[in-house]
């Protein structure tokens, strides 16, 4: 029996009030497991990004709970939640959000710096993770000198430098061509996923679905289907 990394119970989220009220997520429950790569797919406006935000401690639900490592994260204060995200969750954003005025290594070191680690050891650790993603030679370049795929790998290095148990990918291949996107996700599957780590990916991209352990489909704020992916079957 795999260990549950995330246990979400009856999550509800709406935006606005009265006539303007929009139900983004309607009573969604799910479990994600350590060692699993879970995809959430669905059309635009189906609520998958809202769900991802609630799972990762970014957006407070109107109802329901999210338990990670035995902790109901929505019982935490804002500061405790920030601390929780810093130590437990790694994010790879759709647009990467790398600082163009910092070097690649400095960008990767940011989570460690936020943890108040000294500058030099943080940069050393960043170099190690850049090595893992194959970009150590580019450590001193600013991100704007890198290709889209390389920037994505820098974002991955930044996400894993703090050794989080949960990795959140928001449309990781949206800004990449087909081959590059596929290679990136394959790299994540091979080098980033491990038995203590859970990866949740929100994507539209059907070309990368072969790497999923499970794929949940969302429509109109509900999970409408769960498909066991080919990777787990292998």
């Amino acid at each position: 029996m795999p260990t549950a990394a995330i246990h979400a119970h009856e999550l509800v989220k709406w935006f606005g009030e009265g006539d303007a009220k929009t139900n983004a997520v309607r009573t969604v429950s799910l479990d994600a497991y350590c060692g699993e790569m879970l995809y959430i797919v669905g059309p635009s406006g189906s609520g998958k990004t809202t769900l991802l935000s609630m799972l990762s401690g970014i957006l407070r639900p109107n109802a329901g709970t999210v338990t990670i490592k035995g902790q109901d994260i929505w019982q935490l204060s804002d500061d405790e939640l920030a601390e929780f995200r810093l130590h437990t969750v790694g994010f790879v954003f759709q647009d990467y959000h790398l600082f163009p005025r910092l070097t690649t290594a400095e960008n990767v070191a940011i989570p460690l710096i936020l943890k108040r680690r000294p500058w030099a050891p943080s940069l050393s650790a960043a170099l190690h993770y850049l090595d893992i993603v194959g970009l150590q030679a580019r450590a001193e370049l600013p991100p704007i000198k890198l290709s889209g795929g390389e920037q994505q790998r820098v974002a991955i290095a930044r996400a894993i430098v703090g050794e989080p148990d949960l990795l959140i990918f928001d449309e990781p291949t949206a800004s990449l061509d087909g081959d590059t996107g596929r290679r990136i996700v394959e790299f994540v599957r091979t080098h980033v996923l491990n038995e203590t780590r859970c990866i949740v990916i929100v994507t539209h991209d059907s070309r990368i679905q072969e790497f999923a352990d499970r794929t949940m489909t969302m429509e109109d704020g509900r999970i409408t289907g769960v498909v066991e992916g080919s990777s787990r079957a292998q």
Partner: protein
Amino acid sequence: MRSLLTLAYKLLVNDRAKFAALTVGLTFSVFLMVQMTSMFSGILQRASATVVNTGAALWVMDPAVTTVANSIPMPDYVLDAVRSMKGVNYAVPLYSGAALVKLNTGVYQSVTVIGLDDTSLFGRPRLLDGHIEDIYGDNAFIVVRDAEFGKLDRPTLGTAFEINDHRAVVVGIAAVPISGLFGIPTLYTTYRRAIEDIPSMRYTLSYILVQPKTGESIADIQAHVEALGYRALTADGFMHQITLFYIFQTGLGTNILIMTVISFIVGLSISGQTFYTFILENLDRFGALKAIGAKARDLVYVILFQALLTSLTGYGLGVGLCALLIALAKLRLPDYSATITYVNLSLALGMVLVIAAVSSYIGVRKVIRVQPFDIFRG
């Protein structure tokens, strides 16, 4: 914390164009603020030159006197009355007035004449050349060697000229701590010769310089002098009165104040706008930092540090530039009256800190409001 501030530093200075714009704007603003207030300080300092140079603890004068240069003569009995007051150690007369000197070249030159008490010579300047007792000689005058010295054709001991049609001979060359405000040379002589040589009103006593027995007796002396219908001010009080006169009764203070406020607004506008643009350009990244786990206060530290760093850099450069230009100006124009005081520096520092506070407040407000969820929503 140090690594976080290093990160803030790199985010700021690596954006060279914005950092340069911020620094240049603040430097210019601080330069103007310090320059304006320094000019005013220089003017005020020179306006009180006689008070400083004489060194008396207490000055007795007509109540209508506003500046040391505009003395209103008092009758001689006031001197006797002051001398008889309890708490007065000694009191001496001082003459301060204007005269016209005719140089050997035939050129006329206005001068300030200070007439010292014949007996004590209280308030005499430090002599660079000559002997003080020579001041008792016939037609003897001491010339102050300051920025205006050249206007008397750089006289030496024994140089003769006419002062109000009386013969005058230079018997000493002196130095004083502060030159006068009005750009004219200063001559010292005895009180008796001053009132003989220089046409004056019925009364001749410009000021009475008083040395109280103790500091505690000053208030009593001031009360007694007031009962006589005159006013006694300490040296600091007199200088304060002169300062108030220039601030409130001439357009000078208002103009300087307006220029200083304009400089402040220029600095605030440049800094505020550039800093705001800097924050806006990085807003999504600050949101990403929040998503990663940065607390709001981490980002506040980053922004405060950046605002403070640019402000203090601009402050240092602005003060340095101002000091350099004043020094260069004084090389060419020795009587250029600008003095950087601790008050000027503190005022400019206070204003630059306000600029930093306002600029960072704008940025902080923006960054605190950004939600990490907005980053996911794009």
